[in-house]
Each structure stands twice: as structure tokens, then as C-alpha cells.
């Protein structure tokens, strides 16, 4: 089984899982009293946000290791992770307004999670533009690593600054020190959804990585002796 086929299989598994999450969310999880059906999007929105950020951390870590080891697989993984992170950030930025319209009465609000994801999205776009703008493959890998590492360290700063700036986003519901305030069935659905998004991340990255290997072969795979 090739890497690409593996990636496709994992992605398919993730997509089935996503369908499962939504069957469970719509049919077997109670409807939230205040927000109504709109709350269902939460199962898509929050896991996507978590993985959009985690993907950036992986981009930074892969970049840091690349600078030491100069192993192009790390660079390829960073690029793949960045592209998947961009997709997840886009999911957050589109599901946010869909949820926001019925609940907040406006499509876009500068709430904490949307703002930080938007900035993260800009970092990703810059990262992908930089990769496109540098022709030399070795220079590109190094520059991308430097930007990725900086991006990774920027994430907490963005978080903290939007937190200091007032927010009207619903406060953390699951990941907070006291017991989760989500009713148990919703919590289970949410946890399953996070797991499903993890599978999706792995699937997407694997596919993207396999495609990068295929695309890179004539460019640098046989780059020369040593």
C-alpha cells in the first residue's frame, strides 16, 4: 500500500467518523436549550480550531528539527501540516459566522477565537506564500523553517493579546480547571469529534506528504551525490 493510498484510507475513515459525529450530534445528543440547533456546529468548530493551532505547533517543531538535521522529510511534513492547518483555520473562519449569525445576530465578530484564528490564518498564508516565492529548494526549506518557528511562538502571544482585549466569545466550556460544564452526552460527542479531527489531520497530512514526495522527486530527490 503506498503512502498516498494509506492517507486516503485514513481520510476516508475520518470522514466516516465525521458523519458518525453528526448522526450522534443530531439524533442522540440533546439540543442545547438557549442556542438551539445552531450549537451543533460547535462539534465542527472547536475541534477544527484546536487542530488549526496544533498544526502550527507541528510546523514550528518540524522547522526547528529541520534546521538541525537538514532532513527534507521534516520540511515536507512542515509544508503538509501548514496546508492542512490552513484548511482547518478556514473551517473555523466559515463555521464561526454560520454559528454567529443566529446566536450573536451578526456574521462576523471580533471575538477571541475568531480573531486569533484569523491571525493564525494570515500566518499560514504568509508561510505558503513564502514557500511559493523562493525558488531554490534548500533556501525555501530554511526560510520556511525560520518562519514556522516564529509562527509557533507567536500563537501564545496572539492568544494572550486577544484575551486581554475584551471578548464576547463563550468562555472555555470543556478545557477549564473545574469540572466541564457540558452535559455528559454533549461532552462525549465533542470528545469523539476531537478524535475524528485528529484522524482527519493525520489523513490529510499523510496524503499531502505523499504528494509532496512525488512532486519533489525530479526537483531535489536526485539532486546529486551526497
Amino acid at each position, binding site marked *: 500500500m503506498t503512502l498516498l493510498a494509506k492517507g486516503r484510507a485514513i481520510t476516508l475513515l475520518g470522514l466516516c467518523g465525521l458523519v458518525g459525529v453528526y448522526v450522534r450530534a443530531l439524533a442522540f445528543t440533546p439540543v442545547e436549550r438557549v442556542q438551539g440547533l445552531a450549537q451543533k456546529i460547535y462539534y465542527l468548530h472547536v475541534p477544527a480550531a484546536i487542530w488549526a493551532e496544533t498544526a502550527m505547533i507541528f510546523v514550528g517543531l518540524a522547522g526547528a528539527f529541520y534546521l538541525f538535521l537538514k532532513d527534507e522529510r521534516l520540511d515536507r511534513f512542515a509544508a503538509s501540516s501548514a496546508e492542512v492547518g490552513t484548511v482547518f483555520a478556514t473551517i473555523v473562519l466559515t463555521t464561526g459566522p454560520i454559528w454567529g449569525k443566529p446566536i450573536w445576530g451578526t456574521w462576523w465578530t471580533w471575538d477571541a477565537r475568531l480573531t486569533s484564528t484569523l491571525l493564525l490564518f494570515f500566518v499560514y498564508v504568509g508561510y505558503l506564500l513564502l514557500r511559493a516565492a523562493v525558488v531554490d*529548494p534548500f533556501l525555501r526549506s530554511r526560510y520556511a523553517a525560520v518562519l514556522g518557528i516564529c509562527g509557533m511562538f507567536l500563537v501564545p502571544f496572539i492568544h494572550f493579546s486577544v484575551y486581554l482585549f475584551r471578548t464576547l466569545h463563550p468562555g472555555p466550556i470543556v478545557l477549564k480547571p473545574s469540572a466541564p460544564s457540558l452535559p455528559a452526552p454533549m461532552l462525549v460527542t465533542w470528545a469523539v469529534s476531537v478524535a475524528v479531527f485528529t484522524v482527519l489531520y493525520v489523513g490529510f497530512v499523510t496524503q499531502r506528504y505523499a504528494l509532496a514526495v512525488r512532486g519533489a522527486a525530479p526537483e531535489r530527490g536526485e539532486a546529486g551525490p*551526497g
Partner: protein
Amino acid sequence: MVSAEGLRHAYGAVVALDDVSFTLGPGHTLAIFGPNGAGKTTLLRVLAGLVRPNGGSARVAGGRHAIGWIDHQSHLYGDLSVRENLEFWATLYGVPRAARAPRATALVKRLGLAARADTPVRTLSRGLMQRAAIARALIHEPPVLLLDEPFTGLDLAAAAELRALLAELRGAGRVVVLTTHNVDEGVELASDVAFQHRGRFVAFGPRGTRSAAEIAAAYRQAVRTDDA
């Protein structure tokens, strides 16, 4: 003093260095001949520490402090005068403060730049700019000189002057590595010659008593054999 061991480097699919090895002791001048794209510039950039080779190793005794480097660019700031440029580079190379100005003065005099020493480099002609670039490379009195096509852009008189200068520098026990695509240039300076083709040293050895014409013939022969 300068040595290379199994150097390999490639830019994508283009091989620039292919198993290059040599050793040069004090007083030796190596002239590397080769067509454009043979990898001569890459070799000098590896020796200068600008490019990390894909494989093998290069060593220059004394490290970065020991290297004087000239290539097709002058590495000078257009808005600074020749003297200011020289003093800036002297500072970077750790030349003691008291020695900077006298050394700069001596160099501009030696290179025939005294009249223009205080004008901005931007206003110099191509030939004078090249002399200023040579002065820059010599300001820290480096024991090793790496010269990439040093005769390019010089008229006949200036080229002859540069040859005289290089002969003088070689006399002081320096190691000189110079590249050129023209066999007539620099061959009389060389103690050793190498022919580089497609990244490889197809021949390397002492010049002996061979004349430029003999070396040119050997060079054509070596390159042809390599192609076959």
C-alpha cells in the same frame, strides 16, 4: 595551508563539485582553469566558507581571519569613500585601530588609487573599482587569497599590474587560489595548475616548466577525454 578532501556539491541536478581533493602548502599558487559552469566559483565559495558542501570537507588554516577573497563583485559600499570602506573592513577583520589608517593609505598608494581615495566608490570607473576591491581583500594582510576570475574587466595594463602584485604577494609565502577560464591569464603565476570540468578536477599537479601553450593544449586534451 589550504586543503580540500572529497568535496561534492550540487545545485539541484547541476553538479558543481565532484570529488575534488588537493593540498597546497605555503608559497603555492594554484590556478584553476575551466569553462564557465565548471564549478570553479563554487569551489572558491566553499573554501571561503560561504557554501557548505554536500559532502567532503575543506580547510583553510587560520579560518575566516586568514582569507582574502575577490570575486566578480567589489563588496564595497557605493556611498562610502575608498578609505572609509577599507577602514570598515579592517575593523571587521580585527585590525588594531592604530594600524587601520596607515594600512589603508599604503594600499591605496600601492594600487594607484591615492588620488581617488576620498571619493565615494560609486563614482569610480570599472577598473578603479576592481583595484579598490583588491585593496579591500588585502586590508587584513591575509595569508590566503581566493581570487575568482580576478582579471575580468581589467584592461591590459591593469591586468599586468595585478599580475605583478600577485607575484609580489606570492613571494611573501602566501597561498593563492585563483580561477580563470583563460589559460593565458595567470599561468605564469601558478606553481600548480588544475583543470576543472563538470565539477571534477580532470588534472591537478605542479606546473613544472610547461609554457602557457603547452598547458592550454593539455587542458583541451583533458577536457576532451573527460567528455568522451
